[in-house]
């Protein structure tokens, strides 16, 4: 199923992928987390990588962003092997937000966001009016302009994450890769951050994220990559991909997939061992 889907994307049905992994094998200290994986990121949409803990989703994201160097295979950005490109040139095309980044104590929001301009600067040209304009707009777009003079460490988790996204935006790339942008955020702030990510994609950017929460991933993604044990189990629109069978296969999770009463995507209702009205659970789920 996954192989067919990849060919469909590569054949140009939805535009050529700007970022793709070809036969990548990646691991830490001799142990391969991902072995010979192929994946293409469709342009202009939000792609979310989901999967159980330790399945290699962060490893895949880190490989796509050149943070990890594959032992074999390659990551291709705009037709070129990312390992052969200057890391600075990659930074002009691909913005990256790692998981739970930490700013030095006392660094102001404006200064943090201004760091995003680094790939466009040089030793002599450390700050131009262009930079100022882009940073102003990045601050405004993420709704943190009024916090510009505040130290980042004095902000709430949600505000802080907006500031980091703002820094990634100031980088001026149309490819954004976010590693668990909602970690440590309560649901309201998580929704807030993901709405922002959706705004960014609406203006033409390609977004790739790793998310833990399946319902948030389903709601906010146009393309899901479901991983298990280092390989891709399924890829496609949440409506096509999210089924009770898949959740069982990928996560070992018993769940019902129902229509989301407010959204246009499916809603996952997990079935645990307790607090469940058994008469509501379909027979085929019961027997598992």
């Amino acid at each position: 199923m996954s192989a067919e889907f990849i060919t469909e994307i590569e054949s140009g049905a939805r535009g050529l992928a700007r970022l793709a992994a070809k036969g990548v094998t990646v691991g830490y200290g001799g142990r391969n987390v991902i072995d010979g994986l192929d994946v293409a990121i469709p342009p202009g949409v939000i792609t979310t990588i989901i999967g159980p803990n330790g399945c290699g989703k962060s490893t895949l994201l880190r490989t796509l962003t050149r943070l990890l160097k594959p032992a074999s295979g390659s990551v291709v950005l705009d037709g070129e092997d990312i390992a052969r490109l200057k890391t600075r040139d990659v930074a002009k095309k691909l913005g990256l937000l790692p998981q739970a980044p930490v700013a030095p104590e006392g660094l102001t929001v404006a200064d943090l966001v201004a760091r995003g301009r680094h790939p466009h600067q040089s030793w002599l040209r450390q700050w131009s009016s262009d930079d100022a304009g882009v940073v102003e707009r990045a601050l405004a777009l993420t709704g943190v302009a009024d916090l510009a003079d505040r130290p980042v460490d004095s902000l709430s988790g949600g505000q802080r994450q907006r500031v980091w996204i703002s820094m990634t935006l100031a980088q001026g790339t149309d490819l954004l890769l976010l590693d668990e942008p909602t970690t440590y955020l309560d649901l309201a702030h998580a929704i807030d951050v993901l709405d922002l990510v959706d705004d960014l994609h609406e203006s033409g950017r390609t977004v790739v994220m790793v998310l833990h929460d399946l319902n948030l991933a389903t709601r906010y993604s146009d393309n899901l990559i479901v991983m298990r044990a280092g390989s891709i189990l399924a890829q496609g629109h949440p409506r096509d991909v999210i089924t009770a069978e898949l959740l069982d296969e990928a996560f070992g999770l018993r769940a019902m997939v129902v229509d989301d009463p407010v959204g246009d995507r499916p809603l996952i209702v997990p079935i645990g061992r307790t607090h469940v009205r058994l008469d509501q659970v379909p027979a085929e789920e019961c027997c598992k």
Partner: protein
Amino acid sequence: MSGTPVRTDVRTDAVTDVRADGKRSVAPGVRLGQVSFVWRPWLVCVTLLLAAAVFLVFCLSIGVGEFPIGLPQVVRTILGRGERVDQFVIMDLRMPRALAGLVVGIALGVSGALTQSIARNPLASPDILGITGGAGAVSVFLVTVSGGAAAAVESTLGLSAAALAGGLGTGLLVYFLAWRRGIDGFRLILIGISVSAVMEAITTWLLVTADIKDVARAQAWLVGSLDNRSWGEVRIALWCTLVILAVVACAAFQFKPMHLGDEVAAGLGVRYAMVRAVLLLCAVLLAGVAVSAAGPVPFVALVAPQVAMRLARCPTPPMVASGMVGALLLIGADLVARTALPITLPVGVVTAAIGGPFLVYLLVRANLR
């Protein structure tokens, strides 16, 4: 190439009102021809004031002595328009000591700022990178173990050079032990502390078992002092420091995003492992130069960046200001050691006595706000 339009800038259409209070959010820039940088008036003022203070203390330090010379005369002589007697006393006799203080102070301040920034930890100072420990162990070994190879090394290399070699050797050992696909700040600190502890154990063992006269000589070296500097030694230290500082200045731009962590820096196109390796080597070399010129002067490298950070109101140690505070602390301490106290103390005793309380004062003041 792509199916969707490629956008390289932040969307502008959605932004009408940039900020509710109408103020600019971003620091203004300064442009001089092709050169542009962020204008930070406070940092620039603090750095200039510190430089002025360093110059003042430098001149005061030259004026003080058995044959006191007034401040105006000192300045005139340094500028090359003094009388012949002053010229001799200042340029030939007193300048080496003052310059050694300046160079060692700047080297220690910048070295501390680099190690603290690289480790992202205010406790990291070149002392924990093993340089001080290694230099101390080697010099105490040479002083206390008489005859044979030790004496031969001491007579050919000189104590300072041998100590420098020992310090650099230990620093590089820590550096390579900490290397694991790049340098990790935490690992560096742990290995540095372990190696330093071994070196200190060796030093203590040598002192305990040595002859009492040698112990006194070794102790004097271990505290750090600016006594009896010659132009030859100072010239070497000065040139080494200038070359290393030039490398630091070149790498400083690439270092800026590294305060945000390795992965963010990598995302911004910085080859962080290489930048860090180069700058850490610079920190080790700067501390080595300082140790060879003045012995292991304690506390300056630890406290100078922290004081500079608080004075300049920066979230990370500012390099130039740290160097200035280092120089101010070292020359000032030497001045106090020679004048204010009834007995002449080595500078190292006073740096710790002044620097410690001042840092505590800054921390307490920050708490009271």
